[in-house]
């Protein structure tokens, strides 16, 4: 299976993602933001970091970089595109997924382990995963997902919510919401479920020495689903 990770100026989880994809069997290529064409890929990943320093709105500059035209076309033709953290912010800025990501509710960067609950397994990302609650890791300043009431109704009607913040037993009470996201949303799909944006970093949970292996489960399952 072939994957591509896009490196923007200021990306800093691109190597971590490359390591994770390789570990679980992807043949991964790193793609420079200024390139125009994508290598042949089964999966495109927009990694975490601070693209262009995030000095404008997070992800906004990156969403206009050269390679993104090809990424958007790839997504529109049904290709799998996954954006993690800053990658999610970039996806939101391209309009491939609805909504926006605001500054965290307590106005602080948060780096910690969280639990997320899967809502929908009718998609390539989570199909066949035999766990409902995953322990993942977040590290962001702007992960507070927000959208209009109409948008919320639409994404709920279309089952576009991918994961919710919760506790280890799956309770989605407000106290388990680390950043103030509407409905505890930690990740969402586009309508066709081929594009996934999420704040948690599965690539930081791929080893028992790194406080957990639920990221491993995610990647192993993902490559099996693509095969």
């Amino acid at each position, binding site marked *: 299976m072939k994957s591509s990770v896009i490196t923007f100026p*200021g990306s800093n*989880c691109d190597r*971590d993602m490359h390591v994770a994809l390789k570990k679980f069997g992807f043949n991964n290529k790193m793609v420079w933001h200024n390139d125009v064409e994508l290598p042949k890929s089964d999966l495109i990943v927009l990694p975490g970091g601070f693209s262009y320093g995030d000095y404008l709105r997070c992800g906004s500059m990156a969403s206009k970089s050269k390679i993104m035209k090809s990424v958007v076309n790839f997504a529109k033709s049904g290709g799998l595109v996954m954006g993690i953290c800053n990658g999610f912010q970039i996806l939101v800025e391209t309009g491939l997924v609805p909504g926006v990501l605001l500054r965290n509710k307590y106005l602080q960067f948060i780096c910690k382990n969280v639990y997320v609950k899967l809502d929908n397994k009718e998609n390539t990302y989570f199909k066949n995963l035999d766990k409902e609650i995953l322990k993942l890791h977040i590290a962001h300043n702007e992960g507070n997902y927000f959208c209009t009431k109409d948008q919320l109704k639409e994404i709920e009607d279309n089952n576009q919510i991918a994961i919710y913040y919760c506790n280890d037993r799956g309770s989605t009470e407000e106290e388990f919401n680390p950043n103030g996201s509407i409905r505890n949303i930690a990740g969402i799909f586009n309508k066709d479920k081929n594009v996934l944006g999420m704040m948690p970093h599965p690539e930081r949970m791929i080893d028992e020495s*790194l*406080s957990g292996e639920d990221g491993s489960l995610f990647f192993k399952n993902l490559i099996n689903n693509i095969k």
Partner: protein
Amino acid sequence: MEVNEKIAIEHGLKADEYKKICDLLKRTPNITELGIFSAMWNEHCSYKSSRLHLKNLPTKGQKVIQGPGENAGVIDIEDGDAIVFKIESHNHPSFIEPYQGAATGVGGIMRDVFTMGARPIANLNSIHFGSPQHKKTKNLLRGVVNGIGGYGNCMGVPTIAGQTSFDSSYNGNILVNAMTLGLVKKDKIFYSKAAGLNKPVIYVGSKTGRDGIHGASMASASFDEKIEEKKPTVQVGDPFTEKLLLEACLELMAGDSIIAIQDMGAAGLTSSSIEMASKGNLGIEINLNKVPCRETKMTPYEIMLSESQERMLIVLENGKENLAKKIFDKWNLDFAVIGKTTNSKNIELFFDDKQVANIPVNTLVENSPMYNRKWKKSKLPKKNNIKNEMLRKLKIKDALKKILSNHNVCSKEWIWQQYDHTVMGDTIQKPGGDSGVVRVHGTNKAVAASVDSSAVYCWAHPLTGGKQVVAESWRNLISVGATPIALTNCLNFGSPEKEENMGEFVECVQGIGEASKYLNFPVVSGNVSFYNQTKEIGIKPTPSIGGVGLIRDYKKMITMDFKEKNNLVLIIGKTEGHLDQSLFARTILDEKNGPPPEVNLFNEKNNGESLLNLIEKDYIKSAHDVSIGGLLTALSKMCIKGNKGIKLKKTKNLINEIEYFFAEDQGRYIVEINPKDSVEVNKILDKNSVHHEELGVIIENELIINEKTKVTIDELRSYNTNWLTKYMST
């Protein structure tokens, strides 16, 4: 402008120093030249008060590749890998402008490390604030934490450990010390020594602006009521540009184009160009019109003294300019050939086709002033006579609660949760442990690092305090299973012109030297920050020690959380009951006098090495060194982290229970072992003549001190975790 003594003094020079400049030049310097002298001769850059004493520190060792004198120290971690590391202060700017001050402190130290060809793999910091009740403390803390996070998080380098303390002596002078570790191949280390004639001198990175002019001079003076006026001397950080600069430099370093490279830190273009020339025994010629400027009409004086961040100076091989330029263009960074190396041994500056400065390099470096300042020796204070009746009245549980929730013991999670500590995917021990640990990417090795300081001990008796900080750093590394290799130090003191402060410095350095020599734990890099005082009030002497150690098989790393019910808990090292200068004595008895605990280097070494031996043999399930707050505090933390309790045995020790539980005797560790290994572990410890006692057995969820005194783990946790969050939210 005509230069005279008055102007020189305004530049922070002394009258006799100005006279020396005129004598060396055999003429009056012009204003640009005076600016250059003032930048090179201030305390921060010239180490004029400290050099004499720093010479005595042990800096060599089998594992030392590069000691002090370069951008950072370098140690060998086997298999062709090396670790580059250093700690540096950014105290003065952080007090004036906490966010930018702290951010650029982190940026500066990372640049020191990647200048040497190493990719930064971990950041640490040691930050010290005034009393929690002081009106400035909360904002300073918030600003500093935001600044450290803002820079480090954007760079994508994990912040893996640190230390935070509060003490009223920092009310008018906070401390912000930042440390970085980088990984490099032993044969790809870059140095700052220029070589060869007519080699192009290259400027890369951000443009030069008017920010930070005289930053290093500001850091070499005390504060007074006009400190707000100094805001423009604080540099402004741009971590995004630094990330690009990091990637571009490492890309260029993969080839063989670079002869020498030096980052523009304190005193900017001045010190970087002069240091490269001085080390290479060469001259350097710079055309200042070629320097990329952010603002118009910048004068030679401003260009030379600007401390704009994210800039590097490189001496390149001839003919490699285009190749290098292509790389910096790719990363959207400025690139300019601004001069060349010469055989004049002078620094010659040109602007608008006129020579604007011409100074022999050696007058700026070798001939810089060096002072043998007067200093006062400290006496070891007399031991306090703490009466037993006084202790008997106290309830252990009440004392424990007060200590666990004390601002210098409580959990600092509120701080480190704002630092990305997991990026790069190799952090195997997060902040909150004895040391932070990162794997050496793609190998079975890991590197442990810790940063420590004990200002209270150093204040009570500088010589003992100096030894103690080194010993504590050594213990923190051993507690995670790492073999200590070397250290870096950041020496924060008051004014060297005051005999008491200078004495504190001299004796702390002596203590650091003695301990690091005895423990074979050499000093490979560091920095000195004097004048940490507002008007007449200086800080407590605060040397910060950053220790680095190696774990050959990362799977053998130890953490402090209790692991399993029914396991035995031992204490290694003897508890004598030393309460003077302990947190208990200072906060509960309100007794601030007396000597700090004695440091017995033989025991330190013997206990530490014996524990490493037990770890190597897989006998140790968890370990934690006993430090501030004493034995019961250390045990409580192990309970909280492991979510397990312990039933303590009745102690056979003859001293009072309070002394036993809260004394801060040195050289002690608490360890957890499986009962089946007990005979073997005792045998090894006895054989090595290591004092050890069995403390108790791990149980489900209570700390049982005796029949009458029990505390649940939830209670312990609430004492320990709430203070800082509550403090910052009110």
